[in-house]
Structure formats: structure tokens, C-alpha cells
């Protein structure tokens, strides 16, 4: 089946410490098609490490193992690092949380997009600026020519995040991993950034892994959701079925959010069952 972009089986990430290993991800399996897959969890759930493991960005001394990790028919586990590196950025890419820290502060944003294009299209130097302007327009920046020459500190958070999206998409990848792409943004701005991401993902038929701590956001944005806790998968379900979640952890997370449409005297607290981690 060519529609499966990513096939992961029994992914494990662990870090050596003084008292043996600490498991960050314990046995995650999933397949990803050309869809929006959400990975939800609280801090320390292993959701970011999962994204990093797919891109081979787990920092040393972390160790990644899996029974299977295939990207469009390519075996990522046996692939030499050189080839893996060529894949990264070109065919699978990542959008980070905070544009403030992810953009180069001493280079104009347009140049940074053009640089990405040049790296992935050697021999097409002259088109780079044109392509960058085209991408800025695609992320609905109103005056691309003006914004091209701005430095990261001169753009707002929302615009910075749109520049990041433009930079990732200019290489025309098949898979994007977005790690909390809107948590540093105001709600109204983040809705605009999501709308742009949504259009581009469905327009180009990309696979998107959307990593977030925000259940409501993932529910409304993604097609499918994986709920993680302590490095393990609690539950995988269609986003629209989140209301009928079976797992106590998912239900607990949903219930403890204060809601606008309902006045609660106290918020329900849930206890974590050690059984969830087996």
C-alpha cells in the first residue's frame, strides 16, 4: 500500500543514567497515511521524543530501538546515517514550538527560506528568492517582498511561525512533524497558523504528526489521536470519538479542563494508575 507513509513498530527510546536506563518511549506502534495524526500527552509522556526518534534527532546518549521503522518503503533502521540525513529536511521535516529560538537571528527570514531551497535544489540558485517569495505568499503573508528582508526579531510570533512553515514546505516534504507549533502563540494567532497549516497539508496531501498537550486543539484539528502517558500509548482513536474515550487517563484529561459552557464548583482530579505503565 503506497498510502502508508510511515510504519513504526515497537519504538523505544531510553537514556542511560546512574541507576540504569530511563525509558522515554516504551513500545510505540503506529502507521501514518496522508492524514493528520495527533500525539497528545502531558510533560514527560514521550510525545516529543517520538517525533525526534522518527527524524533521528534524539540527542546522545539516548538510544533508539524499534522492530520496524519504515518511511515510504525505506527502512530507516538499517539506512546509513548519510542517507538518513539526506531524507531529513527534504522528505521529512519538523516544525518546532518557538520561532524565536528556531530561526537564525542574524539572517533575514527570506534568506533563510531561500537557503533551504538552495540546499535541496543544487543548481537552481537563481530561483531561490523567487521560491521563497512564493512560499511567503503561500503562508498568507501579505507583503512577501517586505517581509523577505526582515530579521526574526522584527516579526511577530505568529508571523515567525508562518516563516517556519514556509521554510519547511519549500523543500516539498511528504511528512511533517509539528511539535507544539502553536503553544507559544496567542489563541487567535494560533488559529490562523493552524488554518494555514491545515490548507497546505490537505492541499499537498502531506502526512502530519501533530504533537501537542492540548486535547481540545488536537481533537478539533486532527483526524486520529494517540494518547501517551509515561512513554506508553494509552489509547488510539479517531479524533471525533474522543468524547467516547474508554481509557481512564484520556477521560481524566478531558474532564479536568475548565470549560466555558459549564460551571463546575471544583474540577475533577484523577489519580494515575501504576498499571498504566505495566
Amino acid at each position, binding site marked *: 500500500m503506497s498510502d502508508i507513509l510511515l510504519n513504526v513498530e515497537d519504538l523505544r527510546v531510553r537514556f542511560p543514567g546512574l541507576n540504569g536506563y530511563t525509558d522515554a518511549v516504551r513500545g510505540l506502534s503506529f502507521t501514518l497515511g496522508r492524514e493528520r495524526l495527533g500525539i497528545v500527552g502531558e*510533560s514527560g509522556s514521550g510525545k516529543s521524543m517520538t517525533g525526534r526518534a522518527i527524524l533521528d534527532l534524539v540527542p546522545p546518549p539516548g538510544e533508539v530501538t524499534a522492530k520496524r521503522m519504515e518511511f515510504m518503503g525505506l527502512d530507516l533502521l538499517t539506512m546509513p546515517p548519510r542517507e538518513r540525513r539526506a531524507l531529513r529536511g527534504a522528505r521529512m521535516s519538523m516544525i518546532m514550538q518557538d520561532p524565536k529560538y528556531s530561526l537564525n537571528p542574524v539572517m533575514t527570514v527570506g534568506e533563510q527560506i531561500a537557503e533551504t531551497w538552495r540546499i535541496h535544489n543544487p543548481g537552481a540558485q537563481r530561483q531561490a528568492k523567487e521560491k521563497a517569495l512564493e512560499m511567503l505568499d503561500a503562508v498568507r503573508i501579505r507583503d512577501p517582498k517586505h517581509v523577505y528582508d526582515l530579521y526574526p526579531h522584527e516579526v511577530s510570533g505568529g508571523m515567525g511561525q508562518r516563516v517556519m512553515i514556509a521554510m519547511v514546505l519549500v523543500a516539498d516534504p511528504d511528512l511533517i512533524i509539528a511539535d507544539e507549533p502553536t503553544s507559544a502563540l496567542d489563541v*487567535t494567532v494560533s*488559529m490562523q497558523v493552524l*488554518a494555514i497549516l491545515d490548507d497546505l497539508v490537505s492541499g499537498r496531501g502531506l502526512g502530519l504528526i501533530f504533537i501537542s*498537550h492540548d486535547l481540545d486543539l488536537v481533537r478539533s484539528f486532527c483526524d486520529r489521536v494517540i494518547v501517551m502517558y509515561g512513554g506508553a500509548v494509552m489509547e488510539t482513536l479517531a479524533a471525533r470519538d474522543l468524547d467516547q474515550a474508554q481509557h481512564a487517563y484520556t477521560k481524566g484529561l478531558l474532564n479536568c479542563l475548565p*470549560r*466555558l459552557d459549564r460551571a463546575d464548583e*471544583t*474540577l475533577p482530579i484523577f489519580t494515575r494508575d501504576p498499571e498504566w505503565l505495566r
Partner: protein
Amino acid sequence: MTAPALSVSHLTVRYSGRAVVDDVSFDVEEGGSFGIVGESGSGKSTVLRAIAGLATDRDGTISVEGQVLGRKRDLAFCRLVQMVFQDPYGSLHPKQTVDRALAEAIAIHGLDRGEERIQSALEDVGLGRGFRFRYPHQLSGGQRQRVAIARALILEPRILLLDEPTSALDVSIQAEVLNLLKRLAAERRMTMLLVSHNLAVVAHMCLRIAVMQGGKFVEEAPARRFRDLKADHPYTQTLLDASGGFRRGFFAETAK
């Protein structure tokens, strides 16, 4: 008629000449709860900072229990009004134990029964004896925020200023901290002023809500007004719409 616990009238605060809070007025009665919602740069935190005396270039009057505040804040003010900040990582001294953080507040104010106060303050926020001699790095984010709350409450303030007290926390921990604040405020009849970007959090905690944009209150209403997701001001309506999560077509409606 008694004076409101906290009264702010025609408050304007300037940062290098630019007004970040522009002619804001509100009252909070004793034991009441007032919330300010807004996005970054709206000036919501600056209102709290002005009350706490941390923003000095200001016009307008701020009075606490009928007393008009001047430029400087004295010890008596600090006993009356305490503040909890957003980031529990930044607001505790990394080389001081929980015990020392709490003892310092008692020493500054020359309070008696220090031992007893520290024990009961920790108990009130749900931290056992085991936590008293720990350093901040030995605590989780939620536990640190509890210590920050304990440090504010140990002086038995009448007014609590809360600046995004749960934004740095996971949702399950947020629920615990919000429950704790709500219970303590009710038990002690404390007046609460809460600032947050999260409308649902403010609506859960406060009876009255002001929506702030560009340094001004654009709308002020009882919390229940917002529960049917309808508002008078278009900006408030945008916030209400956005609080429900992502909706396809949202961008087209708001930006084009």
C-alpha cells in the same frame, strides 16, 4: 456602604512613554473575584504589576480597602496584598529550601509562631512534611507552584494577585492548583484578582471578567454572561470562538 477591597480608577501605565494600560477602572468587593483576560501585550499583567507597585510610571488611583496607594509600597501593604507569578521555576530561589523561602517572609514581617505558620502553610497547600527541606529542583512544576502559593498565603493576605498561575503547568496539575486556590480563597474570604490568557480558566475562577485589548477593557461582564459563548464586543467573540478549538474557515472569517 463599605469601601471595595480593591478599587482601580482611571489607571494608565506607561512604558517608555507609551501607554500599555490606558484608562482602566474596576472595583472588586471583599471576598470577590475578578478576572482579566487578554492576549500577549494587552496590558493585563501590567495592571497587576501597577497594583503591586512594580510599574511606577502611572496615573490614576489605586486604593486597597479604602486607602489610596502612593508610589511606594510598605510592609503593611505586603501583608494585605500578595502576588503569585506565572513561572514557578523563576520565582523560587534555586539555592534555598522551601523552609527558607517561607521563613524569610516571616522574618521580614517579624511574625511570631514561625514554626507553626510554616507547618500549617505547607499543610494548606497539600504538601506534606517531607517537602519542607527540599530545594526547588527536587520539586515538580505543580509542587513549586504550591510552594509559591504557600509563601504568598503565609502572611495571611486579604487580597491575592494571580498572574497566569497555571499557564506553565500540565492540565491535570492545573486542575489541582485551581481547586486549591478556589478552596483557600473561599475559606479565608480572600479577594482575588486573576489574570490569564485562558478564558475558560478565568470563567472557572472568577465571578466577573474583563476582556482587555490594547491596554483597554473592551468588555466587562459577569462570568455567566460568557457561558453561552455570546459576547457584545467582536474581539471577545473572537476569543470565545477560538476557545472552542480549531474550526476550518476560521481564518477566512477573521483575517480577510
